[in-house]
């Protein structure tokens, strides 16, 4: 039995393992932090958020300040998919963002069945403005 936890992470509930959804690489104990099974990079901010204003002329350029911001990227060690990003402060402890009760998940997943396309309602925006 599997449960998809994010766009790129699944849990094999029988083996109690995190796995990459793209390449099925095992990423470690499902009761532990999935990030421990990934590769991590402190990405250079201007490669993702280019300076739109000239950095020679201005302190503020649309690119985050590296003293105030770190962009941490997490990659699958097997296929290189970017599983998660984390905007944080340089040196701040990385967040253990998903900690699930695996026993409870097993019970609920047994009712849900094997993961397929999730059922998501389409919400239409209420129409506003002139009606005549």
């Amino acid at each position, binding site marked *: 039995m599997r449960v998809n936890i994010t766009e790129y992470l699944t849990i094999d509930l029988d083996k109690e393992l995190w796995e990459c959804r793209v390449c099925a690489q095992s990423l470690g104990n499902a009761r532990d932090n999935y990030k421990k099974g990934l590769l991590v990079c402190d990405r250079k901010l201007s490669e993702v958020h280019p300076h739109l204003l000239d950095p020679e002329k201005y302190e503020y350029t649309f690119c*985050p300040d590296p003293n105030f911001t770190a962009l941490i990227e997490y*990659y699958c060690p097997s296929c290189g998919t970017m599983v998660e990003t984390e905007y944080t402060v340089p040196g701040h402890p990385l967040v253990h963002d998903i900690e*699930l009760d695996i026993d409870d998940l097993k019970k609920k997943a047994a009712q849900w069945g094997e993961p397929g396309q999730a059922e998501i309602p389409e919400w239409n925006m209420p129409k506003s403005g002139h009606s005549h």
Partner: protein
Amino acid sequence: MSSQTENSQLESLNEDDRKLYEEFLVDNQLFYGPDPEIMSDHTLSPRSELEEKVFATNPDVKKINLVRGRLNSALEESFNMVEQMGVAPGAKWGDLVTAIFTANGDMSQVAPHGIVVFAAVCHYPIKFIRKYWENEPSVGIKDGDGFIHNDSRYGNIHNTDQSMIVPVFYEGELICWLGSTIHEGENGAIEPGGMPSIAESRFDEGLKMCPFKVVENFEIKRDLVNFLQNSVRDPKLQLADIKVKLHSVLRLRDRVLAIVEEFGKEYLIATIRRTLEDTEKEVRKRVAELPNGTTRVNTWIDDDLREHILAKVPINITVKDDQMTLDLRGASPELMNRSTNMSAGSMKTSLLSNLVLFCWPDLPKNQAVLSPVHVLTDENSMVNSSPEAPNAMSLLPIFQCFTLPSTVYAKLAYCMPKRYAAVNANHYNQPATFVYGGLTQHQEVTGNFCADINGNGSGARENSDGEHALSPVFGYMTDTGEMELAEEELPFVRLVSQQIAKDRVGAGKYRSGMGYEQISTVSESDEFGFMSGQSGAKHPSAYGLFGGYGSPTYPLAKIKKINILDTLKTDPQSFKFSMVDLMNEQAYEEGEYSAQSALNFEICNQGEIYMICQGAGGGYGDVLERSTALIMKDIEENLISADYARQLYRIVFDEEKLLVDEEATEKLRQEERQARIKRGIPYDKFVADWVKDEPAEGLPYFGSWDDPSKIIASPPDEERYVMASNNIKGVMMSNPKDRKIKGLEAQIAALEEKVKAGQ
């Protein structure tokens, strides 16, 4: 006397003496401040005796549904009346609510338009009125009364919003309350427009209306209203909108009484109570469907509108069966002389808005959505500030909170086979708009804010790109108003109005919606200016989801010492309709060009240029998975440049024909995946090398670091210190100008030393 001593003395009293003592305290209370008991309780009141009696008769659910429909129509009518007649700019674009409350004061039903964020905050003042004024002989609650209120310490989103609250009696019995609240704007604060960025105490914030009676026998008390008018910059607005709200609520009252005549008061009471109880039950059911567990995110606000700071606002969501807990402990301490604190009531209604807009959009918009959710905060933190802390620009943490729950909810809900909405990355979440004030071309003094705020870009979703300039983060049922109408009334001119600006996107497999750029100047007034209270110029405010990137950071830009209006007459070709082009090219030699973060109020001389940009939301998923067709569409629509597409999405294409070389693109993307594997570091090694014991030296950091029970305060130019989270003392900050003077004096002293040494 310490509370411990007081308690032990109380215990020594017999019952009669204790009762006497308590009556004495009630009768001799010197001031009725914000009531901690009321303000800390966001749950539904227990059923009243009357409600119990009504439900004991097993009211017919079909009739209840009919009454609910009639109330909906009545609320819609009153909403439209306020929107059409309201004078405040906010009223014109839907920044208001009309609502019905139970006799106890719980908000049951709102108009099907307007601002969702009002849904869980307008009940506090009614509870205050019932507790303090009902039995107060000099006040009381009678048919024909109307109460006014704005101070968020007594329950409101923020102090710019003013309410008209009316009790409804039937055959002498209080059966419900009706209310209307508008974002009025101007309120006589230290800066015009009602949201002063430089407020250093609550006494800089303008009108501080605790709930009081301003209407008797259905008539406005002009002496009191005159006092209010005398306290603000826009007296006409103050009077007109009190009238608008009162008469709209009185129309609503007529409709409610007609419902009572037709169905009986029991059905009105049953309907408004049942709506709340059903909503609460449904929320518990939905929580129980989620897997048990905890998900977390840390966010930071990078500005307090006087200086840069890094104020942590974390959230953990824990689900255990049908109980959801939102935990914001470890947040920044309150700043005692900065305007960016928020009360717990404002914070909670932001959390509710997020749940109802981004997680469960089909739920009724009422107070009961949050009622079964536990919320944990540290007292005297930025997200639960004390009554003494200023909160005039609480919008910074409020906007942050507008996106918090859905970020962590997505990580619990994605596994569900059936969801109530697609999971989504952050909507843009900063109030990037011009607040303005001064003398208009019609020689009237005014102060208020622009509707640009209602055009935040939405976050990407798991199944689609986000929408551009969709709505404010706090409610989708609003408009951005008519700019031409604003220009007729006000002396500012939009040189560029609502232009989607290139390359400012939250990138991902699905990209965010984008914000628009505004370029403004002033004409026909020498005393008019702008303020803008937003953060996110150094640290992005809207994050991505599941591998998506966040929004960029957004500066504000100015060109001073020019008169673009004169230039446009003689050399119109020189004007570039783009902040980036104007700022990078610096075509006007005499101009003073600057980019900055927040803007405290300042005069904009005629023809000077002020530029801001609404932000993008966060992206969803890995950029290397974005479809090449969608990337070409983005380029065609001028949302991104070719360089940006190549750099972010690793795509090979013919720039002229916009034809993609799919094979070369896949090869390039595969190379990038391999490059990631090469540059990536195993988690444990990365953590060992990268994570530090505390923030970098000199970083103005506030909030917890590795332990939520230890709260760091790092006021600029002062020694960093740590407080226990259960004993936070508000932080006093030094004046930025004093720090600058001190720095300049040190430079002068050093130069003087040099000169002396030279002699």
